[in-house]
């Protein structure tokens, strides 16, 4: 076998290796494929994606699947690939409450996300352990997500109507 033939042989083997490594790796070519794979392997969904937000390490995807909500983190790898990150799925929407929410922590910070069931809610506030207050008043089909990088934990969530009256309040038990 001459050197050109050896190069052809090596190239074919390397293509095979690459295919095998890629198919059996955690890498995906786009964030939505990774998100769908995350949900399917978690035996959940497929969710309707109601909100997607970029952050330095990837994307947060907030979704709704029938009476449940989820928040998934899809991480960017090597600039072009995507990988399944943390996922909080199957949070049942509490129709008897003004809102349903979850707070979570990942390598990329803290998040509080949820869905509003009381249409009077005009503003959400999240209080963190360092005294910060995060606010959201623009909701995505009733969904909200508040993220913070600081090393400060979730303390309290409050929801107000347009006049500023408190509709919902819940404090984290320490």
């Amino acid at each position: 076998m001459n050197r050109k033939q050896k190069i052809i042989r090596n190239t074919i083997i390397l293509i095979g290796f690459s295919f095998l490594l890629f198919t059996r790796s955690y890498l995906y070519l786009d964030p939505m494929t990774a998100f769908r794979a995350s949900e399917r392997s978690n035996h959940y969904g497929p969710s309707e994606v109601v909100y997607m937000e970029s952050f330095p390490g990837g994307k947060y995807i907030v979704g709704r699947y029938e009476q449940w909500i989820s928040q998934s983190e899809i991480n960017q790898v090597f600039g072009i690939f995507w990988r399944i990150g943390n996922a909080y799925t199957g949070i049942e929407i509490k129709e008897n409450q003004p809102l349903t929410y979850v707070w979570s922590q990942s390598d990329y910070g803290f998040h509080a996300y949820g869905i509003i069931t009381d249409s009077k809610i005009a503003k959400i506030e999240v209080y963190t352990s360092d005294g910060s207050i995060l606010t959201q008043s623009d909701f995505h089909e009733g969904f909200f997500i508040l993220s913070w990088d600081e090393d400060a934990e979730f303390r309290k969530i409050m929801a107000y109507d347009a006049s500023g009256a408190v509709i919902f309040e819940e404090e984290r038990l320490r």
Partner: protein
Amino acid sequence: MSWQDKESYLKEVLSQVKFSFDHEFIDKELRSHLEERMEDYISEGCSPEEAEKMALENFGDPKEIGKALNKEHNPIIGWILYISNVLLFVGSLYLIFTILVPFGMSFFGRDPSKSIPKENILYSIEVNEKRKIDDRIITVEEIIYEKNGDLHIIYSDVDTRLWGWGWSFGNLGIITDETGKDYFDGSGFSTGGIFSKSLRTIHGFPEEAKMLNIEYDYYNRYYKFEIPLQAGGAHE
């Protein structure tokens, strides 16, 4: 020019070949051919010195040979081959440690049933029933009941997707007996990997129970295993 010395002759040849990674190979090849010729001359009655001198003369101009070899050992092709060999080596190691070893371990790794002492087993039942949710096939392989009231469910799960990996399977389902009483108190472990073997142990499962039901009903996915308990092992 007459070459008296084999070493300086070879050095001159190699000085014309730009792709240095092939020098050792070329040196070995030329040296072997030269030595063969020298042996021929020696067998014809020449002294070793004469044989070397004649062999070098017959071999030809080292510069010309070197130039010809340089064409044959093109540095671009040489570097491409060298890099592809390195990639192949690194890729093979990566493949072995990230795919083949975990794959092998998940197939030939710890067998959960081996952790149960045989003398403690009251009965065991071969089940080998399969259920599928999404791309995952779950197989309940064996039920082992211990004298202390521990019921062990040995099961495996395999992800049938060709592309990509996702979450591992953590929740086998709700475990009940024929009366509908559910059992949570227990423990478990899983080998993980492509073909994951797992053990779910229920403490205090009644010996007289006739059925073991495993029901998975979450997020519009459903399966149920209904396993008669008094059909196998010591009960037969």
